[in-house]
């Protein structure tokens, strides 16, 4: 009985962490996905120099800050290769903005949006992920 109680408590803590992980991952990837979509819309509208667009700089800055804050925690429960892949794309998006490469920035924003959507779905206990 004592052992059963101990293992139940350990499992409860583990499950609490698992639920917390799902909620946090979902919220962060949803945020990144929506920011990437906004960046894509702003890039489509922009006809001049993208490095001069303040709204675009603000959106990408927000996206980069959110991911930088989260990436350390993400390493606790995500495959590190995936975390590195998202970091790489976020850094690239920021660099393309500074170097005024509109098409590259658009392609990278597309990749970030698709990847974060994929990661968001992967964190949920859906049948496709379970089987």
């Amino acid at each position, binding site marked *: 009985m004592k*052992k059963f109680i101990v293992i139940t408590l350990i*499992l409860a803590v583990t499950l609490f962490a698992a639920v917390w992980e799902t909620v946090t991952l979902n919220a962060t990837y949803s945020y990144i996905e929506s920011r990437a979509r906004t960046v894509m819309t702003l890039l489509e509208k922009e006809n001049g120099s993208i490095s001069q667009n303040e709204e675009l700089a603000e959106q990408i800055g927000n996206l980069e800050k959110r991911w930088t804050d989260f990436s350390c925690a993400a390493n*606790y*429960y995500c*495959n*590190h290769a995936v975390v590195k892949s998202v970091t790489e794309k976020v850094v690239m998006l920021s660099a393309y903005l500074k170097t005024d490469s509109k098409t590259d920035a658009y392609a990278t924003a597309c990749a970030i949006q698709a990847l974060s959507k994929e990661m968001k779905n992967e964190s949920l206990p859906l049948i496709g992920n379970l089987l």
Partner: protein
Amino acid sequence: MLVVFIKSVITFFLVFVIVRLMGKREIGEMQPFELVITLIIAEVACIPMNDPYIPFYAGVVPIVTLAFLQIGASFISQKSLFFRRKISGASVLLIDKNGINYDNLTKLNMNVSDLIESLRSNGTADVMDVVYVIIEPNGKMCVIKKEQEKGKRITLPISIIVNGRWCEENIKTSGVEKVNILNVLKGKGIKSEKDVIYSDVRQNGTVYFSVGKGKDFSTDIEISGGDNW
């Protein structure tokens, strides 16, 4: 490499705690499902320990979950005879009073050669020397030989009360009357079968009782199914 080193140390302590919680049984004494869970835990523990890209937490969740299921199954097995039979299986008689029980042999995916081979491995060359051969749920073979009990009728006890619960199937086989058992218990100041940890009956009607609080005892009663097993 320092990461792998630290992960290995943490894995060691985690597996150590989990194995201690799961019990001290040796591999040969484990039930089949316990062995499978132990092997899976060993495999799961290795993955995050060796791969720096996989977080440690990805190993903790399956280890804790499997340990919970194993301990939970053991806990329920203690409470329910039905569940115990489903999880661990029951002992199977391969040789009984009628000789080799071919039906049971087939159920265990064994043939007569396997049985003879196992008997020889147990130090029994002649089948005629054997009275009973039982395969226990953990896979071990128990051989009861004729010469062990010279001048005395060889009996095979079957359980009738386990953890305060009647073993209905065995009671039916042995032809024991529950009323007789309860009368014996009342005579010893025991209120009901719930206070008995274990009780079994032999073909000659001898019943053994092990009670929770107090000394174990045995008595003879009349049974109608002494020739049934």
